[in-house]
């Protein structure tokens, strides 16, 4: 699903495919094996789930480094995908921590497990949540200060020329199969973009979507379309998310905005997705200060995007990214831990 980029997209429920179901079984067996590991000093053995996209990898590596060096935990990382990981956490009590879990990607069973108290939401992993919406380059907004909402941008198809048909604007909705593409296409209808002179562009693939954005941005031309964050691309290219200009109406959103064939969508604000750190009940009970760290730490989205961009630029792994973050951004993480712990982390760097 993810083309190796820094995507953690709430690409709709269709993402729960066979692959995820199959990866669940070996993961659970592997973890059952893990359980009776010798206890280390304070908080014991902690397994942290790293997902297969860049931001989750970064978060997991930072947590591992902090727990290991700051709190004396015996921290290790397991790879997994959202559904098998969360299922295993509820059923087997391992792994202990899932640093990045998107609400819209969460299966109903997990929601139930949270209500039952088997799993606990420790914190908001991203302070601003997972943000999706309609983005334009920052320089467009700076040159045209009257553009404040999507409706304002729709009035200016000439600012977002379609390379195939320069007399019209291009509304880049994304690739087929993304949940976001459906919503962006419904926006196209809701804001009457066609009458305003926009073409609806199917960018074909994640690579094509990013490519069209980069191509326009490097030429200092406008681009308008669906994007989401935190992502490396938003870290590298400054984009501005345009609000819909109307408040979020949940009933209307579910009735029409996210339904592909619905003929009469109305303008509606794109809600942000909460992205949480989830831990098991047993970890929360036994870990004490280590749990307090996970409950306090919350990443500013811009920092995540910037780190992801750094990782992409340097073709770095999550581990490299974690070290770079801890070295370069003490102002961010020092508020997450006690000064004594911060010293220990600094010493380990």
């Amino acid at each position, binding site marked *: 699903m993810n083309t190796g980029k820094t995507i953690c997209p709430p690409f709709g429920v269709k993402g729960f495919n066979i692959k995820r179901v199959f990866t669940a079984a070996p993961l659970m067996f592997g973890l059952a094996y893990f359980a009776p590991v010798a206890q280390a000093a304070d908080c014991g053995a902690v397994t942290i789930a790293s997902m297969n996209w860049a931001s989750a990898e970064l978060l997991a590596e930072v947590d591992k480094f902090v727990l290991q060096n700051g709190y004396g935990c015996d921290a290790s990382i397991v790879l997994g995908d959202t559904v098998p990981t969360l299922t295993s956490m509820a059923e087997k009590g391992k792994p202990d921590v899932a640093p990045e879990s998107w609400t819209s990607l969460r299966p109903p069973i997990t929601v139930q497990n949270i209500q039952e108290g088997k799993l606990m939401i420790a914190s908001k992993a991203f302070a601003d949540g997972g943000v999706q919406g309609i983005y334009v380059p920052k320089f467009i907004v700076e040159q045209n200060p009257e553009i404040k909402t999507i409706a304002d941008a729709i009035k200016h198809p000439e600012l977002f020329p379609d390379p195939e048909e320069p007399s019209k604007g291009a509304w880049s909705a994304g690739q087929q199969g*993304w949940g976001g593409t459906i919503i962006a296409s419904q926006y196209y209808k809701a804001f009457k973009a066609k009458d305003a002179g926009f073409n609806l562009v*199917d960018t*074909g*693939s994640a*690579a094509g979507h990013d490519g069209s954005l980069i*191509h326009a941005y490097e030429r200092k031309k406008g681009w308008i379309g669906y994007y989401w964050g935190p992502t490396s691309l938003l870290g590298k290219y400054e984009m501005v998310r345009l609000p819909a200009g109307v408040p979020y109406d949940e009933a209307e959103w579910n009735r029409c905005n996210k339904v592909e064939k619905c003929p009469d969508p109305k303008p509606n604000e794109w809600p942000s997705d909460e992205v949480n750190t989830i831990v098991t009940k047993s970890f929360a009970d036994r870990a004490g200060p280590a749990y307090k760290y996970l409950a306090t730490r919350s990443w500013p989205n811009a920092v995540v995007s910037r780190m992801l961009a750094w990782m992409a630029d*340097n073709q770095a792994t999550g581990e490299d990214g974690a070290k770079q973050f801890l070295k370069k951004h003490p102002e961010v993480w020092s508020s997450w831990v006690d000064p004594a712990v911060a010293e220990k982390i600094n010493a380990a760097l």
Partner: protein
Amino acid sequence: MSWFQDFPQMDEDALRGLKQVIDEAFRTFTRSYGEGIEGFFAPLQKFLLLSERFMTQTPWPIIVLIILGIAWAASRSIKVVLGALVALLAIGYFGMWDDSMRTISMIFVCTVMSIVIGLPIGIMMAGSERMQRVVNPVLDVMQTMPSFVYLIPVVMLLGIGRVPGLIAVVIYAIPPMIRMTNLGIRLVDRDVLEAADAFGSSRWQKLRNVQLPLALPTIMAGINQTIMMALAMVVIASMIGVQGLGQPVLKAIANQYFTLGIFNGLAIVGIAIIFDRVSQAYGQRLQKHLEVVHG
């Protein structure tokens, strides 16, 4: 002995540095020359748009008649013409007419481009051993390099849409055209060439009146292969925003719409069979005609 167990690879920092330098160089190149390169391809874009507009805006019965006419002129076979008619009607009936026309237009332009570029290169290859030694490995690379590897730089340079799609398709589809032209000319009988020399024909006359006509059946086989390979790239091309039958196929893959995928896949197959039978029949007719002359 660590060098014996583990391959003595380049230092990691140096390797990362190397990749960065190349990436950066490419980005600078796009920034400074992208606009110019885009301008260079602008006529091609016009051609693509024109052809697509013709195919999608002409009323369907006229398009069907044109295609059947071409099929008849090339093959002189009622069976081929009837087959083409059935395939086209089925495509239209199942609601894939517009997408199919876009695909046919794209394939048509790609084939024309492949012939325009490939034929001269093939002729040059046939005339010079050194040229053949240089071009052959390049063709090998073009045929085996995974397309996304060069698609992404092309997209960064030219954006998404028809032109980058065309470039990707032509890179993949042109090698058989070049190879078969080369082969066809090389296979022309030496005695015939000697006779042409004896009549005092110039190099140009020899090429135009002797070598190319005699190589034509082989060249036709090359064109046939080029069309087939271009069709095989339809789905890849739609991953960078080329409209046509590839887009519903991608949609079907992403959403597990089994029937949608099968229908559009079959439409691609149908178009491929029409093109293949017609161009093959034409090639065979050429050969028959030549045999009579020789006889």
